[in-house]
Structure formats: C-alpha cells, structure tokens
C-alpha cells in the first residue's frame, strides 16, 4: 500500500478518482430522478467528437470534449424541454453521429495510431498528468458547488417541472445549467473510467444507494460516499491486480448494487415491523369477509389507477 502511494502517478490517479467519485453521482442523481439515467451515456458518445477535434487541431482533447459535450447537452436539453414527439430520434442521431464523427476525426488526424482513441474510450487514469489533474479539480469544484449548492432548486425541477415553474424558479436556466454540469462531469470522468463507462459512475452509485435510503438528501450523501469508495477501491485494485481501472471501478459499483438490493428487502421489512410495533395498525387483517382470501385486504389500497371517486 505504502509502495503504491510513493508513486507520483498513483497519487494523481487516486486524487482524480476521488474527484470523479464525488462529481459523477452528485450530477447523476438528478438524471436518475428525472428518469434520464442513460443521458450520460449519450453525452459520452457526443464527447468522442470533441476528442477527435482535439486530435485534429492538436489541442487538448479534454477541453475540446468539454466544448462539444456542452453543445451536445444544450441541444439535448432543448429537444427534451420542447417535448417533441420525435425527440428520441433526434437524440439517437446525436449519439450515433457523435460517436461516428469522433472515430472518423481521430483516424484522419496525424496522431492516429493504435490505442490513441482507446485511452479515452476506456480511461487511462495512470497517465493523468499534473495539468489534467488541475483541470479535473477546477471543473469538479464547479460541478460540486452547483449540484450541492442548488440542491433544493434542482430537486424541485427534476421532481415536478410544472410545479417548480409556479414557485418562480427559473426552470429553463436551471435545466440548461444541469445539462452543462452533466456534460462537464462526463469529460472530467473521461480520463478515469472512459467515455463508454462514464454513465455507469453517474448512475450505479445512485441506484445502489437508493436501495437503502428513503430521502433524497440521504441518497445524495450516500451515493457520493459510495462513488468515492468504489473509485478509490477500483484504482487500488487495478494497481494490485494489473487490470484497467475503469472496468474495475464499474464492476465494483455493480457488485455493491447487487449486495444492497439483496439486503434492501429484509431491511424494509424490519423497518415496517418496528412501525407496526409502535402501534400503527394491526399486524394482520382482523376482518374476515365471506369468500375472501384473508390477508389480501387493506384499509387504504387506492392506487393512482383506481378512481375511488367513481367507485360504485
């Protein structure tokens, strides 16, 4: 362990992992809340065009990817907010176009060679340069400031956009801000887990955490903690076992999700039993109706689908 920490490149890798472990779930939770879990995936595809442009113009692929990804995210947000019926088709075009364009540009560039695009697709955390780390730190700080600082506002627009508008929240501005933050996160995480697995780090810690939580605040805190733990453990594991870091982090996160889902049901049962013990209603139905399967009735079983007001 101490041997690992003595290398400069490992120190930078672990620092980058911590930053990405915090930012990716911090943004991802809002995408999951709005049931847009795969949005990060689409942005990862679009970012490939940015990487390609960086190769062509011999500039930093990270900054080019930020630029292209922000433009892509704003386009996606505009398509979404207009509620266009063919919005999903427009998004599909954007995703595939972004990926195809990226590969084409890279192959045309002078640096084209085996593995040049590879390091962006799957991440190469061990080659994070000091300048990269500074970029990741600055962008990560902005993302954290926005997603945690505007938590109540972003929660409101992702929970119920129409209602948020009536509270006077600038819905359109915040939607665009969230899209830009997601785009920035994708490019920040690009070096750590790679464009193809970026979305996993935005989504999996959130869905793993919410197996055990009931409130948004707890889910956000737990998913960020989980993101940091799996990112650090993934990088450490990849160093010890000599495997790529991106896939290690993602598989670890999925393993945590599996464990949390398995213990979620017994935990929920225990929670309900505690509440019943506190005197909230009988354990079992004590009213038996003729010809009715006991245990299937409930005092308040109205579902959104059932219109009790019209019941005969």
């Amino acid at each position, binding site marked *: 362990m101490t041997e690992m920490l003595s290398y400069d490149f490992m120190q930078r890798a672990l620092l980058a992992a911590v930053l990405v472990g915090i930012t990716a779930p911090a943004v991802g939770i809002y995408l999951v809340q709005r049931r847009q879990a795969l949005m990060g995936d689409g942005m990862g595809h679009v970012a490939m065009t940015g990487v390609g442009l960086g190769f062509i113009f011999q500039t930093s692929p990270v900054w080019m990817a930020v630029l292209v990804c922000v433009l892509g995210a704003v386009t996606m947000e505009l398509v979404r907010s207009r509620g266009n019926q063919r919005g999903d088709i427009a998004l599909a075009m954007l995703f595939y176009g972004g990926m195809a364009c990226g590969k084409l540009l890279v192959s045309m560039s002078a640096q084209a060679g085996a593995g040049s695009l590879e390091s962006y697709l799957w991440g190469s955390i061990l080659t994070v340069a000091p300048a990269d780390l500074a970029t990741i730190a600055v962008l990560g700080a902005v993302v954290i400031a926005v997603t945690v600082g505007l938590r109540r506002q972003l929660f409101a627009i992702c929970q119920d956009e*129409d209602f948020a508008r009536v509270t*006077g929240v600038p819905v359109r501005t915040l939607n665009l801000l969230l899209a830009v933050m997601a785009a920035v996160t994708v490019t920040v995480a690009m070096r750590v887990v790679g464009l193809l697995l970026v979305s996993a780090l935005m989504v999996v810690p959130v869905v793993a955490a919410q197996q055990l939580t*009931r409130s*948004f605040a707890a889910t956000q805190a737990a998913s960020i903690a989980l993101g940091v733990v799996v990112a650090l453990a993934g990088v450490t594991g990849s160093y010890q076992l000599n495997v790529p870091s991106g896939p290690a982090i993602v598989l670890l996160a999925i393993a945590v999700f599996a464990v949390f889902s398995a213990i979620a049901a017994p935990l929920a049962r225990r929670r309900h039993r505690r509440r019943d013990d506190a005197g909230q209603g009988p354990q079992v139905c004590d009213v038996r109706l003729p010809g009715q399967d006991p245990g299937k009735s409930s005092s308040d*079983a109205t*579902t959104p689908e059932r219109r*009790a007001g019209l019941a*005969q």
Partner: protein
Amino acid sequence: MTHPIPPAVRLRDAVASRGGRPVLRGVDLTVRPGEVVALLGANGSGKSTTVKAVIGSVPLEQGTLELFGTPYGSFRAWHRIGYVPQRTTAASGVPATVREVVSTGRLAQHRLLPFRRRDRAAVDGALAAVGMLDRAGDGVADLSGGQQQRVLIARALVGTPDLLIMDEPMAGVDAASQQVLADTLRAEVGRGASVLLVLHELGPLEPLIDRAVVLRDGCVAHDGPPVPNTGLHALPGHDHVHPHADLTPPRLLA
C-alpha cells in the same frame, strides 16, 4: 378582506394549441378575489390546457393573461400562487420523503437562502392541515394515491397562497382523502383565498363553488352559478339531478 381589487386571474380570448392541434379557441376566464371557480367540461374540452395556460406552462398564441392585475410577462409574485398539478404520481426516480416534496413549495419564499425555522414550521403546518404530519419522514412512493394527493396539496398550501389552482384534485382519491381535501379547501376559502378548480364532476365540493365555467371544444359554453343546467347534465356526476335507477348517487362528503 385584505385583497387588492384586481382579479386573481384574468384570461382573455386565450388561444393555444398542443402538438399543432388547437385546444383553446378564445377562452375567457376570470377568478375574482375570494371566489371559488370550478372549470368543468368533458375530456379534451381544454380544462387542463386552460390551467396550464394560467400558470404559463402552455404559451398563449393569442389573448392576454393577467395575474393579480399584472401582465404575465412581468408577473413575479409567484409566492401568491399555490398549484396542485393533475397527479400521476408524487414519486420520481430517486426516493424522496414527504417533507422533502412539501418543502419545494417554500422555494418562492426562501429562494437561494437556506431553509429556515419558519420554512420548517410552514411545512409542518401544511402537513398537519392535510393530516399527513405523522408520515413526514416516509417516502412518497410508499403512500397510497389519495395520500400522495394530500402531499401535493400540502406542497401548494405551504406558501399560504392567495390563489390556489388545482387540476382534478379528486381524481383517484380515496374517500378519507376526499374528506380531508374538502375540509382543507373550506379552510382556505375561509382564510380568503381564491380557488380555481378543474373538476370532472362537481361532486362533494359543490357547496363550496361560487361559479362554474364549462368548456366545450376549447370554448366557454357556460359561465355562471353552478346550477345544474345549461348542458351540465351531460357531464358525469350529475346523477343526483337526473336520477336513473341504475346509477348510485356519489357519496356526499361536504
């Protein structure tokens, strides 16, 4: 009455379409201070679109909208409006507690400032008003349909609005929650709030309603006291006016 003179809502000659299809074709709607107005009509008559035009989520192609005497474009006093959308579910992709959902109703008050003690007290008060204070820490996804509706009503009440806009608040709501809703609405009216209600039927809220506006094909077909005539009998829920042997009258709760 501490209300200013201008009406809470003045919608004039509103024309709007959704997905290229004209839905409102010149709707006039006024809600005066302290008045309870029911917006009635068959499915597809433009009730929900009218409400969405009033809150600004469906843009007007023609016509004017004034809220509390201010043209919509320069209206900023959103804290005066409480909105209960037509509910599908109060839950989203991430768990949230009842308290967290209701707290979003205070955004117009605390804005970018932290949530303070008086905001917390307002949330407690609104939850108590709909009888959900004991469930404040529970996840909204664990609630029944009627309880979720009560949470959404608490979210609208938490800013003590001068105008309450509710889109089909009685749809899919169990009897206990309908009773809570009618009581809450009566208290709000007693406080002096104006109310705009979209209803599929007058039902148990009928005694509270001052005026009914009936829409048909995007036009106002009736605007006056909620006397059950002028085409209202064509709507469901008026079986107590036209009793038929095969229809059981709805339970009257008010």
